[in-house]
């Protein structure tokens, strides 16, 4: 068939074709002689508009545009883990082998390695009836993750042929299914899925289990549920990326999807290096065994940046459907929003706030709605937790991306410039941040850590609140004039801030702290506070207590007490009781 669809106009990454009627909206197309990947984003009776995912330098009017007949999709199958892709699922390692250190255009590489042999165990037999999402075979993708091959969601029918267990390549058929219309479909090791459509689940479940991160300020004060959504807004230099890295390294999800969306190249190489050296404490295997990286750095094509978070979430949903708990970090969603704005500007759409397109909120909502905990089609339970960094322009949280993200996420970990300037990390401001999951998770905490965990947490939070209002006074008249009981609040809050909220990501023990230790730390601090309060009430000056050095000691207990020696807290509590009883 002769292809009459040729380029008419070019404006940055946007290409138009005149008088074409065969394209579908959102269809994936190949543009030009180099076959650059693009997507149809607008159709009128005269012009078809395409956004091209690669640099358009050198394209000419008259160059061919070829349709693929399918929407922008990704290939799902074994080989996703321990891999690094660009925004449209092209493997960067394979591209490096093909074109060297600089990325050339139109690189034609398969998303997943189609030559590697996988050790497949077939789980069905002839005559079984399978519906969409059910598992027909499994294979070890990495030493710790079993990859479960599932019937594509829309398909169901009877298995008419199975292959023996053994080694197969990506596109080999391991079973054949006959659907209700008597059509036979080959089931291989992979399937395709359009990135802008969410994969179906049987039922959505409530968020009642926390995602444990080992970061004290998050786990105790602002916890997130498995399947929850969180936003980390912060100006540059406040540690968004560091916080994301810490979460990716330590949270108790089975699979980590890390999307570097319009971020720094050197940072991605750091992630690559650190994750491959880092040993997962649970499995004793490198982190990369359960990690997928999507790197679309800021200088890579802007349209692919827009696609990268959809690619990420689609991969996440795929692993969720296997019954895994997935956590996806997107760094940063502001870059994605800017990509939207940039393309919208090229299309000469009417801008809304700050030049962002009017559909920004609905796109954000669509994205965050794809997170969640669910009963998957195969019957088990899986979840996708979404943690998006937001880089507000000029550190101003009232800008549209932050404000709209706030509407669609239920955790808000606000990073604070002044904390970051004082090198208080994680610089999560305890007054501005919130978590709406706390009530949902309450039963879990009570069951697993006891009622006192919640009580301690509430008291810590109240002390911080009280300190904040006292600080208003201190700012005006200095701390000397405060009565001793208020000075004590300030002193205890200092211990909470320095000794508890502040956490050292580079310290072997402090980088990840189990919940049990977090609870004991709170208990010890509050014990000191209560005992000291009893003394202060008796009009004994606070300075006498401070001289004992207990406050300083507790500020450093995060380093002094190893994670595996919780019994040491008893000694601390006893020491506090004895030392304070000497004061009279």
């Amino acid at each position: 068939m002769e292809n009459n669809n040729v380029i008419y106009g070019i404006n940055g990454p946007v290409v138009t074709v005149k008088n074409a009627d065969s394209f579908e909206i959102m269809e994936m197309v190949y543009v030009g002689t180099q076959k650059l990947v693009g997507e149809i984003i607008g159709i009128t009776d005269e012009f078809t508009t395409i956004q091209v995912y690669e640099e358009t330098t050198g394209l000419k009017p008259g160059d061919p545009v070829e349709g693929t007949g399918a929407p922008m999709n990704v290939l799902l199958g074994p080989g996703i883990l321990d891999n690094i892709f660009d925004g449209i699922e092209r493997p960067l390692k394979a591209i490096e082998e093909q074109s060297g250190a600089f990325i050339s255009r139109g690189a034609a590489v398969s998303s997943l390695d189609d030559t590697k042999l996988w050790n497949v165990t077939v789980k069905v037999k002839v005559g079984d009836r399978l519906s969409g999402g059910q598992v027909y075979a499994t294979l070890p993708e990495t030493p710790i993750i079993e990859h479960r091959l599932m019937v594509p969601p829309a398909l169901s029918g009877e298995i008419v042929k199975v292959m023996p267990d053994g080694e197969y390549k990506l596109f080999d058929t391991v079973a054949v299914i006959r659907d209700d219309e008597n059509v036979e479909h080959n089931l291989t090791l992979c399937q395709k899925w359009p990135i802008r459509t969410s994969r179906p689940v049987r039922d959505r479940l409530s968020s009642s289990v926390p995602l444990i991160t080992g970061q004290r300020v998050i786990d105790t004060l602002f916890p997130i549920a498995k399947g929850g959504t969180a936003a980390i807004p912060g100006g540059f230099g406040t540690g968004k990326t560091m916080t994301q890295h810490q979460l990716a390294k330590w949270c108790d999800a089975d699979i980590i999807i890390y999307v570097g969306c319009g971020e720094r190249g050197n940072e991605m190489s750091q992630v690559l290096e650190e994750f491959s050296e880092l040993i997962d404490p649970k499995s004793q295997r490198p982190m990369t065994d359960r990690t997928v990286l999507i790197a679309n750095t800021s200088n890579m094509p802007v349209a692919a940046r827009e696609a990268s978070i959809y690619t990420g979430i689609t991969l996440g949903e795929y692993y969720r459907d296997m019954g895994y708990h997935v956590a996806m970090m997107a760094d940063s969603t502001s870059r994605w929003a800017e990509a939207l704005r940039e393309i919208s500007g090229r299309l000469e759409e009417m801008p809304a706030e700050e030049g962002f397109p009017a559909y920004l909120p609905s796109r954000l909502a669509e994205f965050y709605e794809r997170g969640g905990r669910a009963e998957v089609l195969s019957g088990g339970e899986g979840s996708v937790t979404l943690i998006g960094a937001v880089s507000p322009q000029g550190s101003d949280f009232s800008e549209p991306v932050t404000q709209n993200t706030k509407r669609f996420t239920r955790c808000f970990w606000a990073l604070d410039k002044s904390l970051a300037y004082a090198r208080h990390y994680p610089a999560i401001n305890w007054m501005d941040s919130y978590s709406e999951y706390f009530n949902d998770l309450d039963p879990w905490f009570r069951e697993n850590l006891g009622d006192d965990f919640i009580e301690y947490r509430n008291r810590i939070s109240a002390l911080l609140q009280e300190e904040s209002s006292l600080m208003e006074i201190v700012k005006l008249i200095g701390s000397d004039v405060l009565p001793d009981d208020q000075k004590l609040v300030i002193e205890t809050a200092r211990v909470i801030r320095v000794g508890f909220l502040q956490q050292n990501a580079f310290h072997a023990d402090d980088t990840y702290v189990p919940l049990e230790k977090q609870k004991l730390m709170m208990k010890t601090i509050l014990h000191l506070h209560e005992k000291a309060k009893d003394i202060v009430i008796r009009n004994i000056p606070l300075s006498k207590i401070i001289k004992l050095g207990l406050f300083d000691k507790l500020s450093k207990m995060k380093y002094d007490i190893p994670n595996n020696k919780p019994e040491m807290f008893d000694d601390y509590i006893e020491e506090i009781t004895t030392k304070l009883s000497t004061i009279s």
Partner: protein
Amino acid sequence: MIIDYVGVKEINGSLIVMDGVKGVSNEEIVDISLDNGTVRQGRMVQIEGEKIVIQVFEGTRRISLKNTRTRLTGHPMEMPLSPEIIGRVLDGAGRPIDGLGDIFPVKKANINGTPINPVSRIYPKNYINTGISTIDTLMTLIRGQKLPIFSGSGMKHNDLAVQIVRQAKISGADSTNFGVVFAAMGVQKDVAEYFKKSFEESGVLSRVVMLLNLSNDPIIERTLTPRCALTIAEYLAFELDMHILVIMTDMTSYAEALREFSSSKGEIPGRKGYPGYLYSDLASLYERAGMIKGHSGSVTQIPILTMPNDDITHPIPDLTGYITEGQIVLDRSLQGQGLYPPVSVLPSLSRLMKDGIGEGYTRGDHQALANQLFASYAKVIDARSLASVIGEEELSPTDKKYIEFGKLFESKFVNQGFSENRSIEQSLDLGWELLSTLPRAELDRVDDELLDRYYKG
């Protein structure tokens, strides 16, 4: 067959519109000959069928609807490259202006470059000793990093940049494989001369490539200058294995040129009238710093930008800060107190520092010391704001200590001579000496082992 297209259809700012042009490719370079014999260059920025929009680098003055002949060159903007380029002076579009003739190209490269594959990058870890206490100790510059200087009009960013170039000791670099690429965008002639003179005095002039787009040069050419500079830098670093320091001043002028071009093209403006793609555009420059596997060379960038009205939330410093790996912020009040370099410590940052310092690079206590200095200095600021309300006399004894520490820190640590080159040990020891004026219990970022060793209070 070479066709000359006669005349243009429309002239708008630096853009010309032509109709009936066939076979043109996106971003292609065209030669425009005027009746009076001069030739200008332009770049294809938009194509709609046979109607094309060309951006003329030298501006559209003297162009009428009839007096031009335009010829397509068939290729995008390319930069001729050869080892001889070292030591040359070029204009903003990469053409020699030192009277030494054309550069005989060994190869030509597209000035837009191509993105470095993140997989091929080496994570930068080797620090560059600049001999400046604040930078070395608190915001260490790393080989392959992009660390901008955020400054304001009238501040001493140029002196600081010159001092860095003069004192920079890059491990693995010596006089044979070290080079500087200097790109001036919209700066005054005096500034360019100052840099030239300083390079001469420090004996690196023969290893510098200068690209000069001065403030009276065509504005559109300014959008090419950093691209040409970085293309040269990449060539020297990744093909000739040199360590290249790229200094780009002033990025604000560059962004303004981009805004001018964007508005004449009729694009929808983003914040403060800058085009919506300013972030991507700046990223396409800054991200060209780094090191890649298989090559021993490196590209380190020090872009200088003047913050309009000293406002760090202005789009240019704001977007720059989101792309670069930290920033060195200069402060007008420090300069007002006669301190040099007026580095404002708290908002300054080097993101790559944590992996490039410590045992084996600088000294084991470096990270802890830096954290403590930041934390203590932050308290100085709190104490000062309190003092401004209740008076210094009323402060608690600890706060008074902080005020004292703040004065010492600024006058001894931040302040240093323009020609004073402090070794890393000197800077770190000085840091401990100053911290020793504070009570030991206040130093909560350092563990006892280090305190026993270094605290002398």
